[in-house]
């Protein structure tokens, strides 16, 4: 098969994945809205029906994940390289990593309540990728031709996916915590969610698990920069923000392990750290200057 054929196949796979994510989004929306409708305690809550919708949502996300995997794979085959050469490719791979992290967590921790935010986030990412960020599949610029591309970018993308998942959980914690601190009962859509304590632990576990990988991503980037740009660290905007993210998560881990922060304070710090990652990805890639300008925009 030729490069062009693979590029088309990749696009079809990404489009199909988007359709499936949309179905998943509606399924999860039905799952949630059915519970939200009953504000008054008198109305009966039809749990069996929403459960089915939720399961359809999960199945659709799983299918979408398979199509997205193919999309990423074909994109790589069409360009004869790892598919991380511009921002369109970062985005579809990022969506892939995020969904993958969600599916693994779903199997291990019963996280189906995250299906709605996950499907919205992925749909938005893919939508922007296809409409704004899309660039034809092309060979890499010389600076990117290195085995470190695969190592550095995959580590960064996986870390990013898990950081964002930890952020979703920390945000959920804060929402539910605000109910609890006002003495209100949990909203109906949240009745199935784990306890506050479990959410708190879960976001910490995810961060602690992926922090070494993020450290590795930064170091791999430094080693690569040394061979491509003549210095291992140069405070390029992207490097600076990677450093800020690293420092923020290091502070988060210290705050938890050594100082003993839990709950609301820890969740805010986690959200702050995650937002530095998002800022780096979105703002620095598109509007930033410096040497990491591979977005193709």
């Amino acid at each position, binding site marked *: 098969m030729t490069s062009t054929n693979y590029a088309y196949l990749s696009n079809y796979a990404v489009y199909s994945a988007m359709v499936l994510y949309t179905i998943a989004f509606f399924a999860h929306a039905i799952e949630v809205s059915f519970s939200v409708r009953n504000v008054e305690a008198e109305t009966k809550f039809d749990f069996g029906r929403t459960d089915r919708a939720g399961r359809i949502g999960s199945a659709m996300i799983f299918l979408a994940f398979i199509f997205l995997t193919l999309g990423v794979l074909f994109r790589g085959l069409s360009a004869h390289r790892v598919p991380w050469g511009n921002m369109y490719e970062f985005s579809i791979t990022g969506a892939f990593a995020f969904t993958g992290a969600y599916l693994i967590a779903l199997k291990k921790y019963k996280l189906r309540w995250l299906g709605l935010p996950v499907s919205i986030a992925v749909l938005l990412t893919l939508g922007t990728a296809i409409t704004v960020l899309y660039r034809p599949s092309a060979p890499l*610029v010389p600076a990117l031709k290195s085995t470190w591309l695969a190592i550095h970018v995959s580590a960064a993308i996986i870390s990013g996916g898990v950081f964002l998942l930890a952020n979703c959980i920390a945000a959920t914690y804060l929402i539910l915590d605000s109910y609890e601190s006002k003495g209100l009962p949990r909203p109906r859509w949240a009745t199935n969610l784990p306890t506050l304590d479990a959410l708190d632990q879960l976001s910490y576990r995810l961060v602690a698990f992926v922090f070494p990988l993020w450290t590795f991503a930064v170091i791999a980037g430094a080693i690569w920069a040394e061979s*491509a740009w*003549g210095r*291992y660290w*140069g405070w390029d905007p992207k490097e600076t923000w990677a450093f*800020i993210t690293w420092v923020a998560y290091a502070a988060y881990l210290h705050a938890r392990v050594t100082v003993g922060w839990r709950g609301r304070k820890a969740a805010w710090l986690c959200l702050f750290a995650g937002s530095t990652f998002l800022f780096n990805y979105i703002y620095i890639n598109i509007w930033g200057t410096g040497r990491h300008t591979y977005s193709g925009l």
Partner: protein
Amino acid sequence: MTTSELTGISLFRWAWRQLTSMRTALILLLLLGFAAIPGSLFPQRTQNPMKVNEYFTNNPTLAQWLDRFKLFDVYSSPWFSAIYLLLFISLIGCVLPRTLEHLKAIGAKPPLTPKFLEKMEFATSVAASKASALDQAEKYLRRKRFRIRRDADSISAEKGYSRETGNLLFHLSLILILVGVGIGSLYGSKGEAIVSVGDRFINTPTSYDNLAFGKFQSEGSLTPFELTVTDFKASYDVRTNAPSDYTLSVLAANPVGSKTTAKIIKVNAPLTYKNTKIYLQANGYSPLVTVRDKSGKITYQGGVVFLPQDGNLTSSGAIKLPDMNPQIGFVASFVPTYDRSNKRGAFSAYPEVLDPRLLVSVWTGNLGLDSGRPQSVYRVDTSKMSRIGLAQLKLHETYKFSEGSITFEGWKPWVNLQIVDDPGKIYALFGAIFAILGLLLSLFTRQRRIWIKVGEGVQIAGLAKNAAPGLEKEIADLKSKLEEKL
């Protein structure tokens, strides 16, 4: 001892305790993150001095104030340095005592078994024989590689010391990275030089366009290599015009005058002589021209380096002839593949040379080279000059103006070499590797204690540091082992 001395010492102690406290370290860590932000928002001198100058021209007053606070040199500013130095002092003050403590703990036995096990976590009583329970438990725990303190009626066992080992290794490695960065900036050098195809570069300070030495590095310390650029090939993707490969061929010798060997330099594959690396950083074109005076005598012949202005290598530069009478200057552009639009005028449509043009405007008067002020070689100061001609030349065309003529003879590519000597990076690399190993060790080791006590009955309890999961299962396992032997 006088009281003032006492307060002096106690003040120092108090300050030291404050600085090395975890809370201070945490604040400094977050502060370091925030302090790094302005460096990504304002242009930095070390990265892009041109942008800084531009900022000064556009907002002179604001720029002056920003400069007073070192916002164009954030990462070498006193306040940024103060934060990271304090952080590292705090870190050393925290890590060194802990390292000593940890070394002692490794040699020592686990702490005594607490008096009342029933108050501890996972406390459970075991239906096991009092006589053999401790022996069996010891055997079991030894096999699981716990450290064991055996007393008359109890066992205190601990496992997972490598958590602290990893933690300390990680923090000590950060210090090693800082040392590496320091060595690099004090004993290193970094410079750039533009070399055209066919030219020779000898590694001495005068060969550089710009060169910076570390504080303790002298000019004589440059690696004495030489290289001659034999060929430079750039290939581009025809659909996107993006570069797909750069290959630089050189004949290199180290030291100067020794036997030369052919080498290839690519963007991700620099040429290495010990700590010195030679990088291919940028490329462009030098148009070749011949300039004649009114009588037809050649006043200049050769190539002039032009700077690329866009991705398609539309290049601009200056040709200055101070020895002609009157002085002549050409403000010129080189367009490798000619195209034209009403908006932009002539521009390049592709970065390779397919249909080249040389655009010149001819100026006569005073070039201003004697004024003593340094001048860019890529620009003509036309303030004391007047324009006497304008032309667009195809290859081998000649343009005649009142004071002489210029002929567009051809072009040759040039490359910008970056030559870096960093003796500290090997320390930084080892620091980074140890840091990751330490981090993995500390984040994935579970540290926990298990106690067994024989009194009224047999009791087990445990303690998991940082609520690490899995201890409950371990204790249940031990319990069933002890009970099955009953």
